[in-house]
């Protein structure tokens, strides 16, 4: 399909704007600061509508079908969320408008923080972080500030080897060193390895629970104790909270700080890669370190308090991805306590059901009860020359979005599958069917799998070429590569 630039026709117009309508001033900007050309495309409104309508048809979302991308909680995004986020008082409010005219927004943020506290058991939340990884960074900055305040120079962050890539990346970003903790044969943190690694140099354990294998760290209380016993902090990567809503509070696992992914657990749409929300919750003793401003209630007024004693400072201008918060708030208020628990229970039921079904054809490296997701391996199929990549691509032909693949790294030929609670049994059965057919094809007709996809808008794309000879912006001459 042509690029929008390639559809441009010199002189074409897509909008009309009002006349300036004021006496014209001479430009007092020095000549050499004035733009000469601006090669944006020139199109009419109909061109733009058709172009992006066509592009949308080459994209697949939860609204298109099953999207079991593990670790990403691709659940259904209720349409009401979108409608409410576009209410004019939310959508068109300026972050610097007076507090008196922002009571709705502040109240919403204040209450949302409280709900998140109740759900997680934490004592306070900041809503500033824009995504999970941003939350991790924020949390670790607070840990660093806290330790520094205590006069401790702890350098190490312990991270299970199954952790998401953002965990180590955030750690080094914060100037920490990372120490990898091995996963045992049951798919959980190896207690001995942890005990061996934890010491007075341990700043933080970053743990994901349920972990990225979809398995609940049943020793979590002990794990926390070990870390605490060495004076370290326990940070929970709460991206997988969908499985735990109303079941267990991270606080009760011994967690000191954590982030949540609003765009996963609380059903705000993923937007093709964002925006998200990564609020960070902490226990009382870390509250003073939260980024300023924090929202407080004084009598009947909600206010922004910029005066936070040991605050690490801002991590975001203004107050965070407010529009995303509106959606999460809507979701929580529509579900309530029972609704949230239903979410966790059904997410876990769906995952276990699908896991058991797929186990008939695929290797299940950790064959235990899972939570919101599970990881199977394409190793059996690999013997027939069919890789997990091939299986994923073949799934496209069956009209499904593939699982997360080759992650977590500790499972060879990994396929990480998270069905979420918003999928029905029929859909799971249909997906299992497709996976079964592919397993059969891998035996009887491996070429059809290896050359997949066949019916997508493009055939398999060459990632190596893209990286070897990177073309990352339009140049007229590249248009006919």
């Amino acid at each position, binding site marked *: 399909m042509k690029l929008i630039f390639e559809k441009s026709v010199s002189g074409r117009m897509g909008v009309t704007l009002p006349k300036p309508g004021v006496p014209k001033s001479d430009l007092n900007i020095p000549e050499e600061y*004035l733009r000469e050309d601006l090669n944006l495309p020139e199109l009419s409104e109909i061109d733009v509508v058709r172009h992006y309508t066509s592009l949308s048809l080459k994209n697949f979302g939860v609204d298109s079908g099953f999207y079991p991308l593990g670790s990403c909680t691709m659940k259904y995004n209720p349409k009401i969320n979108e409608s409410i986020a576009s209410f004019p008082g939310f959508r068109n409010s300026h*972050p610097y408008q007076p507090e008196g005219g922002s009571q709705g927004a502040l109240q919403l943020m204040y209450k949302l923080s409280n709900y998140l506290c109740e759900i997680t058991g934490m004592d306070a939340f900041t809503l500033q972080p824009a995504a999970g990884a941003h939350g991790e960074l924020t949390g670790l900055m607070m840990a660093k500030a806290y330790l520094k305040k205590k006069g401790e120079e702890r350098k190490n962050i312990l991270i299970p080897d199954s952790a998401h890539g953002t965990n180590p990346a955030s750690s080094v970003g914060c100037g920490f060193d990372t120490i990898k903790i091995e996963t045992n044969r049951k798919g959980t943190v190896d207690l001995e390895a942890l005990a061996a690694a934890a010491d007075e140099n341990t700043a933080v354990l970053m743990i994901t629970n349920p972990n990225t294998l979809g398995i609940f760290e049943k020793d979590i209380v002990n794990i926390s104790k070990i870390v605490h016993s060495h004076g370290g902090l326990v940070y929970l990567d709460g991206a997988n909270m969908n499985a735990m809503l109303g079941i*267990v509070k991270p606080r009760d696992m011994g967690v000191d700080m954590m982030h949540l992914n609003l765009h996963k657990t609380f059903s705000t749409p993923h937007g093709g890669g964002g925006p998200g929300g990564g609020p960070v919750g902490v226990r009382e003793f870390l509250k003073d370190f939260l980024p300023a401003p924090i929202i407080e209630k004084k009598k009947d007024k909600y206010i922004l308090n910029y005066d936070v004693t040991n605050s690490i400072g801002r991590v975001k201008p203004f107050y965070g991805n407010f529009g995303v918060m509106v959606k999460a708030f809507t979701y929580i208020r529509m579900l309530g306590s029972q609704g949230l628990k239903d979410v966790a229970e059904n997410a*876990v039921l769906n995952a*276990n059901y699908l896991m058991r079904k797929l186990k008939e054809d695929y290797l299940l490296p950790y064959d235990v009860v899972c939570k919101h997701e599970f990881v199977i391996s394409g190793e059996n199929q690999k013997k027939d020359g069919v890789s997990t990549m091939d299986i994923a691509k073949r799934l496209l032909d069956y009209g499904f979005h593939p699982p997360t693949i080759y992650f977590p790294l500790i499972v060879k030929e990994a396929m990480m599958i998270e069905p979420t*609670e918003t999928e029905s*049994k029929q859909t799971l059965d249909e997906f299992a069917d497709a996976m079964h057919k592919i397993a059969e094809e891998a035996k009887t007709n491996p070429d059809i799998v290896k050359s997949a996809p066949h019916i997508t808008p493009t055939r398999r794309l060459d990632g190596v070429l893209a990286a070897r000879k990177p073309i990352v*912006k339009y140049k007229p001459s590249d248009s006919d590569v």
Partner: protein
Amino acid sequence: MNFVPNTKKEREEMMDFLGISSITELFEDVDAGIRNKDDLKLPEPMSEIEIIDYLGELSSSNHNMQDFACFLGAGAYYHFIPSVVDHLLLRGEFYTSYTPYQAEMSQGMLQSIFEFQSMICELTGMDAANASMYDGASALSEAAILAAKYTEKKSIMISKAVHPEYRHVLKTYANAFGLKILETEMENGLSDIKDIKTKLNDSCACVIVQFPNFFGNIEELKEIGDLAHKNDSIFVTNVVEPISLGLLKPPGAFGADVVVGEAQALGNPLNYGGPHLGFMATKEEFLKKIPGRISGLTLDTSGERGFILTLQTREQHIRRERATSNICTNQALNALAATIYLAVMGKHGLKEAAEICYQRAHYASKKISDVKGFEMRFSVPFFNEFLIECPKSPKEINRTLLSKNILGGFEVGKYYEEMENCMLLCVTEMNTKSQIDELVNAIAEGLP
């Protein structure tokens, strides 16, 4: 409502298949000791009718720029968004998808990201750009980190004329990443070149200025860039009001190595401060250092052009602790909004919008300067924001304005003590002449 489709019967069938008689059995690995004993203490669930009512009221208790003459900018801009933008954004295939890991099923997002990158490069005069960052401030911070890594130097020089909250965020990041901040002074509303010259030293990884700067003024990029380069520092330019680039030469033309900024102004609503849209664009040589997603052009097995996430070895999911950044989820949908916005505004529309902003802002500045007691604080070229020195407290003036449904300027005293009597006003294509005239009248009225 729980949005769970399965019925009781289906759940029972599934449990039968699993050989369990209650879902609780699936949670036996969760120690009973820590399992919630009580229901969560949350308000009663609401139906859709009720939540619309409830949040409709909450929304009404917020100012809504449609009901005001808005002269507030300072990093968040109330610009025109052609209705076509939202109509297209609301297509489920876009907004209910995620990062386009599976290229063949995600050509829509991948191509639009490629288009976004191209447009950002065109606007800024750079060679490469990424798929988006959280916001202008995190983009700026990441630029500083990039510079520090690239140059192996530890100091970040930044002008006080950069948005104060961006500098706060940078400070937070710098603390964590072990970087030192060197702030440089201002002179008549511009970064003080003498001060830059004086403070530049071997440890300076980069020099950061904003264009137009926080006060709307047009920095002397050429001179500053030359100084930076002479010092082997990377020259970073931050753009927060990108509509200005419809009128102004791109930072790249003045030697900027990295251009970061905030593109909310391009097709994204104010949203009480977020989600907005950070971007980063660089010269070719930094391509492999850029944080975040990048969409690249490639071919499929039948030789057709297509797009794919590329240079992923920079990223956390591959490179983990050695990644260029930890960013994963970004602001993709906001980037799509900007892309559609720029496509429909096009070359002429953006230029025209910039021209209207300029003309109306200058009209406003002149009219206000004519009011006794009000004066332009600076006398340098500006785009659509300008600092006015007031004869009484800006807070008080704003209060009067508000009572007339005018949202006055930003009270910069909050961040610049020495400018306590100053107000930063912003004028866009949304402010009609009569709004401006009313503003001027309202200001004049309140005087003795």
